[in-house]
């Protein structure tokens, strides 16, 4: 029964027009990204409640699963207050400028064996370029609101994001050196190693310094705790989105959560072996069933990382702004440069600093 269904699916996918296949992938990934956000918000609230030993949302629908839907409906029917003295065009555009780059950057992340919306051989560069545009949305939104708190929040957000972007890209370059490629699928394949200890091939173990830098910078790039200074409620009300209400606020929120998913997806791909499993050989000519399985593996790793994001949020306190900039410029960037030098020396002279690969 299952085998015949899989065989039928295989035939159907093989017979499919490639244009149709591309469009279906694009629509599915887009829909998945948009719909993962309400689920993520629900789980964030439930897990927060669990960590803080309270109940959390449990009224709307069974165990509160419809809470995000209720929130969305409420936000749609809220009044859209646009204060006087704003720069209307920039003010209106800013939320979309936050959300669009975050979601567009996901197009190159492989969610399954050679399966992504757009397979460019320069995937990493595309992702870093598009992802960098989010800074404009935050800075514009903060400035255009004509509010001192928004202005400070926008400035803090942009300064923080550009500072950590350097450390982030430098740590990614170390990964590109181990994989000797900028193609994300090739990076996933380079992390695969045979045997029970095959997971040691993951860049998490092969490039531990780069992993630590990337992990910290990912939190700062997505403005999550412990680096959520642009919007820390106690000092800046809501930061750059103080003056936004109704669905414009929701768009900022959407962009923030999609950016979190994109960052986790990139982290899975670069450091945790992406869609591959260490004990399972990657098929040269993957069947539809193999691709489906690899998508599930990717989603499992992604879900774990998203849980880590929430977990960290309720574990660590917020940094002070000078500490934040200090860590970025005085610790992470020098460390990333040292890591690059170590990687280059190790690669050229065959000095193995790290755990030897099995097999």
């Amino acid at each position, binding site marked *: 029964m299952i085998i015949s269904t899989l065989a039928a699916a295989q035939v159907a996918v093989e017979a499919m027009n490639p244009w149709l296949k591309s469009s279906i992938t694009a629509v599915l990934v887009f829909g998945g990204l948009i719909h993962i956000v309400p689920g993520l918000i629900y789980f964030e609230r439930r897990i927060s409640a669990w960590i803080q030993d309270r109940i959390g949302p449990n009224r709307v629908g069974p165990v509160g699963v419809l809470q995000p839907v209720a929130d969305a409906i409420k936000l749609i029917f809220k009044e859209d207050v646009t204060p006087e003295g704003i720069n209307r065009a920039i003010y209106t555009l800013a939320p979309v400028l936050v959300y669009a780059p975050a979601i567009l950057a996901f197009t190159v992340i492989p969610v399954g064996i050679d399966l992504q919306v757009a*397979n460019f051989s320069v995937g990493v560069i595309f992702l870093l370029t598009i992802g960098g545009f989010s800074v404009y949305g935050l800075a514009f939104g903060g400035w255009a609101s004509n509010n001192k708190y928004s202005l400070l929040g926008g400035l803090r957000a942009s300064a923080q994001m550009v500072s950590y972007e350097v450390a982030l890209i430098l740590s990614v370059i170390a990964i590109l050196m181990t994989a000797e490629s*900028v193609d994300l699928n090739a990076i996933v394949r380079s992390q695969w190693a045979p045997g029970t200890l095959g997971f040691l091939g993951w860049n998490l173990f092969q490039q531990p310094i780069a992993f630590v830098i990337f992990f910290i910078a990912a939190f700062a790039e997505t403005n999550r705790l412990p680096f959520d200074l642009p919007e820390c409620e106690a000092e800046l009300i809501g930061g750059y989105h103080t003056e936004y209400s109704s669905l414009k606020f929701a768009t900022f929120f959407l962009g923030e959560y999609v950016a979190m998913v994109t960052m986790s997806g990139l982290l899975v791909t670069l450091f945790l072996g992406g869609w591959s499993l260490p004990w399972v050989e990657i098929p040269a000519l993957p069947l539809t069933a193999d691709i489906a399985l690899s998508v599930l593996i990717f989603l499992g790793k992604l879900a774990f990382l998203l849980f880590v994001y929430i977990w960290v949020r309720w574990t660590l306190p917020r940094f002070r702004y000078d500490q934040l900039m200090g860590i970025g410029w005085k610790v992470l960037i020098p460390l990333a440069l040292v890591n690059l030098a170590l990687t280059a020396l190790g690669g050229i002279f065959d000095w193995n600093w790290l755990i030897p690969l099995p097999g």
Partner: protein
Amino acid sequence: MTSVSYDLFALAIFAGLTVIVGAGLLALSELVGPRRRDPEKNTTYECGVPLFDSAREPFTVKFYLVAILFILFDIETVFLLPYAVVYKQLGVIGLVEMGIFLLVLAAGLLYCWRRGALEWD
């Protein structure tokens, strides 16, 4: 070659969906929902006290300094990206050249650091 055009097609569909959803969200927030204006509500938020001046004021120059440093180091990463892919073929000569380049930039970072450009007070 054709496979690239499929990818571009998929990217175009994805970008189209992004724009449609973004515009839809903005339009919905303008169209749906009540519209009850009053002069108090239309002022920007200032901790519940009457607004006393505009936010269009000069702010600390530190933020510009960070932006300038970012541009320098971002260009450094742009130079490193192609090197990362071919560093094994370039061998020792490439390593020495990249090493000199990185040392110059590291010296620049150290200079900024010692001059206090990285301090926030």
